[in-house]
């Protein structure tokens, strides 16, 4: 079956009157935000939900991907009559800063040199990504989001919203996430980055000018990362030691095992839709996240302004990337800050990726929380 690629997103470019101040000190101006929206913004402009995507996700949360043609990564959840009902809510999804699907990132042209930024693009943070989203929300004339929701890096952005712009939130739903990257998180990202940079086609980050692409490196980075998104159990269940189209091992380095073949496929299909330098920049941004440090060692301090925000967090039992303990750390900090927070650890065999999959308990929790919050908000 061939799939038809979806349409590319519309975008908005912020001119020199709205510069983007970055944490590293640099200023990005002009900058562009590509976005998808679903549903209608009501007259009171109080029914908007910002959906934040994960590391390699994009704004196509409920529409077909323009390159792969695959349905949006959360099309199961977002849509008319669905859990996040676009007949009731106005859903906004922006491509994150530093990414590669329309929002300004390292593959774009640096207006000062006329060449692609590559690794001369300023190093960005999660706070910078959220600052760009805030500019976009302002541009839409929305004073307060009904909710901000996201899993993984999307959850980090939701936390960042709570820390930086709590007054702009009525509720927040950070899922399977963390308020800081652990040494292990950073270690896995470093493996990915080194794989990209070790690829001779990376060309010190100038591969676009050299008209090549570090496919191998990016693909290996994706393979390593993919292992962290699934549980040992789910890999065993899916593949165990099953062999790929053969009865015996070949005493060679071909993909004898199904799991090898699967990972190679994950890597190979990823390079068609993602930019290698974007991968470097976004993983770096996640590594730099350390909200407790910003609260002088006490995470609760960064949520001082978020007392009024209704929060719902959840983690998954087999997620070892952002395990329950990391999510609970956030819950405890929110409690200490006096915020109204609900939390559950959801039983799932699928590891970190569970938030993208069908999990009835997650759906029930989300549905209950969002409906109750919407009733409270009167929308």
């Amino acid at each position, binding site marked *: 079956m061939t799939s038809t690629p979806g349409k590319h997103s519309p975008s908005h470019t912020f001119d020199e009157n709205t510069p983007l101040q970055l944490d590293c000190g640099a200023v990005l101006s002009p900058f562009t935000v590509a976005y998808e929206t679903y549903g209608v913004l009501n007259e009171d402009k109080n029914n908007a939900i910002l959906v934040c995507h994960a590391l390699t996700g994009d704004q196509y949360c409920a529409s077909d991907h323009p390159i792969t043609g695959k349905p949006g990564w959360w099309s199961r959840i977002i849509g008319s009559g669905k859990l996040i009902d676009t007949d009731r809510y106005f859903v906004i999804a922006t491509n994150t800063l530093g990414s590669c699907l329309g929002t300004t990132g390292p593959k774009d042209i640096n207006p000062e040199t006329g060449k692609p930024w590559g690794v001369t693009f300023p190093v960005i943070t999660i706070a910078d990504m959220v600052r760009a989203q805030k500019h976009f929300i302002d541009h839409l004339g929305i004073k307060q989001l009904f909710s901000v929701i996201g899993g993984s890096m999307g959850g980090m952005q939701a936390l960042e919203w709570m820390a930086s712009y709590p007054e702009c939130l009525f509720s927040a739903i950070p899922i399977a996430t963390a308020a800081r990257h652990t040494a292990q998180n950073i270690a896995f990202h470093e493996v990915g980055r080194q794989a990209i940079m070790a690829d001779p086609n990376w060309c010190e980050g100038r591969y676009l000018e050299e008209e090549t692409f570090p496919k191998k490196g990016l693909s290996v980075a994706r393979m390593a990362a993919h292992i962290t998104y699934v549980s040992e159990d789910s890999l065993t269940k899916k593949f165990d030691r099953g062999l790929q189209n053969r009865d015996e091992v070949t005493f060679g380095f071909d993909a004898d095992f199904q799991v090898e073949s699967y990972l190679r496929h994950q890597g190979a299909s990823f390079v068609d839709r993602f930019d290698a330098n974007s991968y470097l920049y976004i993983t770096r941004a996640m590594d730099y996240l350390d909200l407790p440090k910003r609260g002088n060692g006490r995470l609760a301090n960064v949520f001082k302004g978020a007392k009024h925000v*209704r929060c*719902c967090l959840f983690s998954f039992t087999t997620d070892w990337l952002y395990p329950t303990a990391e999510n*609970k750390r956030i*819950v*405890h900090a929110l*409690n*200490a800050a*006096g915020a*109204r*927070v*609900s*939390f*559950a*650890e*959801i*039983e799932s065999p699928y590891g970190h990726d569970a938030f993208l999959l069908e999990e009835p*308990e997650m759906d*029930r*929790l989300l*549905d*209950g*929380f969002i*409906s*109750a*919050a919407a*009733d*409270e908000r009167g929308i």
Partner: protein
Amino acid sequence: MVTPDKLRPDLALIAEQINEGERLLDVGCGNGELLHWLTHNKKVDGRGIELGQSGVNVCVAKGLFVIQGDAEKDLSDYPDNSFDVVVLSKTLQATHRPREVLHALLRVGKRAIVSIPNFGYWRVRYKLLATGKMPVTRSLHSTWYDTSNIHFCTILDLAELIEAEGLQIREFIPNNSLGEPLDCSLKRANWRANQALFVIENKS
């Protein structure tokens, strides 16, 4: 005072002890019946802790704020005096360290409402005496190997512990199996009451 007529009788007894607008933590809040009622009828700023996923889901769907966790592990993460009142209903006897839990309740809350099934109730005593086996009654319905109640106590036992720990009983409400209050002293309640509710505070 609002009469909590729609609540389960044992919960209604608890609800009577709670004032308008108080900050409340319900530890082991189940399906959130008490929390929900108090939020709507007494405008409490309520939070809950519940062990079971299904209970948490039901609570969240009601618009309540509930964390999946347990009385022993998760109380330690709340700051001192976060709440006016903390409720622990029929759970103390199921904890590993009831004494530490009592102190934790009164660290995070100004007062604690603790209810227990009374192992000194005459029916329980009679069962043990007559059969020589661990009592199984209507309110203590699990067998010894199956029960989550690992630290059974009588009304006098708990009263003694409260005293020994330097805490004080502000209210004591013994009640029958229907949750109807009985008017009697600690000693008489110890054999007459099926269960009892204590409102406990730190000695000032």
